[in-house]
């Protein structure tokens, strides 16, 4: 190789120019990497960009005419928006499982672990990137809804609370996805998480009123985490009372984060030593 002419060691200028280890800086670089990866994967782009718009269109135009919104008396587009927001953002968050598994099984983790960085920064970067991506996804879904006739009636505070809830939801789900990604033995198995997450909103009060479901499903729909979140977002955006739904939703989110983060930390340590 004739091009290899420079001496192997560069002068100390470059290397001693190395600054102090900065964990926020490391996190920022790895989040940048994770987002860049997502931007280059067709499946991820599809999930994050096309899916929210597609689902919104399908529900409003295809199913919407046939579905009754029951006692709420809402237009279907108004009724379904929160569910589509959470479905799209959640599905995107579920991809975190595959991203973590890919790093773990693809060998990238070995490179990262021999770098002078804190190892927890690696899974954390996937979670942060997931939050960024999926807030954008939720915004797209919202944009599609507005174009299809969704007319929210919400104050700035309401919007801020909706944003906080979406961020919290994506955060909790991404953290759980990290646990899943660390538990499974292959990238393919990691993808199964998406299906669970995709399915959950359908069994909630989000797409059809829970009161129209048969007994057992109805019981499930009323007590699973998506329902209070949907009800909270719906109440905030349409200026309706939300009762306890807000607190229930917040409790689910906090529980999701508080339980999955330490598990993820232990698993990550175990899987990488």
């Amino acid at each position, binding site marked *: *190789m004739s091009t290899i002419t420079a001496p192997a060691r560069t002068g100390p200028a470059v290397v001693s120019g190395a600054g102090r280890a900065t964990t926020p800086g490391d996190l920022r670089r790895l989040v940048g990497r994770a987002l860049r990866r997502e931007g280059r994967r067709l499946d991820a782009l599809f999930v994050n960009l096309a899916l929210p718009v597609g689902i919104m269109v399908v529900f409003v135009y295809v199913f919407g005419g046939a579905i009754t919104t029951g006692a709420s008396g809402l237009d279907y587009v108004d009724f379904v928006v929160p569910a589509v927001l959470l479905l799209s953002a959640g599905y995107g968050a579920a991809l975190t499982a595959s991203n973590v598994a890919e790093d773990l099984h693809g060998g990238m983790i*070995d490179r990262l672990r021999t770098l002078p960085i804190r190892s927890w920064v690696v899974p954390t970067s996937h979670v942060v990137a997931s939050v960024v991506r999926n807030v954008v996804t939720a915004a797209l879904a919202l944009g599609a809804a507005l174009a299809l006739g969704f007319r929210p009636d919400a104050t700035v505070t309401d919007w801020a609370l909706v944003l906080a809830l979406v961020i919290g939801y994506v955060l909790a789900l991404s953290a759980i996805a990290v646990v899943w990604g660390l538990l499974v033995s292959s990238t393919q198995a990691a993808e199964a998480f998406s299906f669970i997450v995709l399915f959950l909103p359908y069994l909630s009060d989000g797409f059809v009123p829970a009161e129209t479901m048969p007994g057992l499903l109805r019981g499930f729909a009323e007590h699973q985490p998506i329902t209070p979140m949907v009800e909270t977002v719906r109440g905030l955006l349409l200026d309706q009372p939300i009762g306890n739904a807000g607190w229930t939703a917040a409790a689910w989110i906090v529980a999701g984060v508080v339980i999955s983060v330490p598990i993820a930390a232990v698993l990550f340590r175990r899987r990488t030593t």
Partner: protein
Amino acid sequence: MDEAAIQARGLRKSFGTTRVLTGVDLTVPAGTLLALLGPNGSGKTTTVRILTTLLAADGGVATVAGHDVAREGAAVRRAIGLTAQHATVDDLLTGRENLELFAGLHHLGARDARRRAAELLERFDLAAAADRRVGTYSGGMRRRLDLAASMVAAPRILFLDEPTTGLDPRSRAELWSVIRELLGAGTTILLTTQYLEEADRLADRIAVIDHGRIAADDTPDALKRQVGTERLTLRLQRPEDLPGAGARLSTDADDAAPQLDADARELTMAIHHPDQLRDALTRLHEADIAVEQVELRTPTLDDVYFELTKAAAA
């Protein structure tokens, strides 16, 4: 640096009930290349993973760049670069983006990171492909990028785990020349390989690892003397002649008995000098043992193993 760049004493590691390392001792003086030679499953990668802080040993001590790998992992990581067996670069990023990312994670400033990446791409002959995604690279290019990624912080000590496995001969030769350059510039290298030829060409010393322990640790020349510069295989016409032929050819004082393969009617022995070939054929001829086929070849890892384990058993 007076002390050894890499030193391991009695490294042990088990996975469940499988004892992968049963006591590995290694010393790599600064600025030299040690080849850790062994087949799959002999413990090469496990040794490298322990020395690079990726894996904790069950027992034994190891220091890299003067730091204990178990207690001073961060200091060790600052001194080393690792090119693992599987590619450890990001397929979805370009070569340049990969190197800039790793330079950033080594805490080089943005401008220094860019300069370092450009410099490495140039040096490892990847400048033309710098802005293509790594997913489109050939095996040899990936390996070079991997090596470049390990060199981002100009480490004094480099671990290369089977760097040429799966490469075509040309890429292998290119990688060898890169490794020689690094060595020439003063880098200490521990390289694992399954190929005796590779170890022979690059290493100052070769440590042969077998079932989790070092079976031999010597210079390439000394090891080759032990194994023989050539391997002679003789196929006999009559299987019943085999034991007699073996006895006749094992009279040389400095050599252990030839290796006999009854099923193939073959006998294999080390040849250090062309005269030995003539001598062997003459002896068989005198004993009226008919030879059907003669084959001379350079020793393989199997031969090294056979000789070393035979020596250990004796």
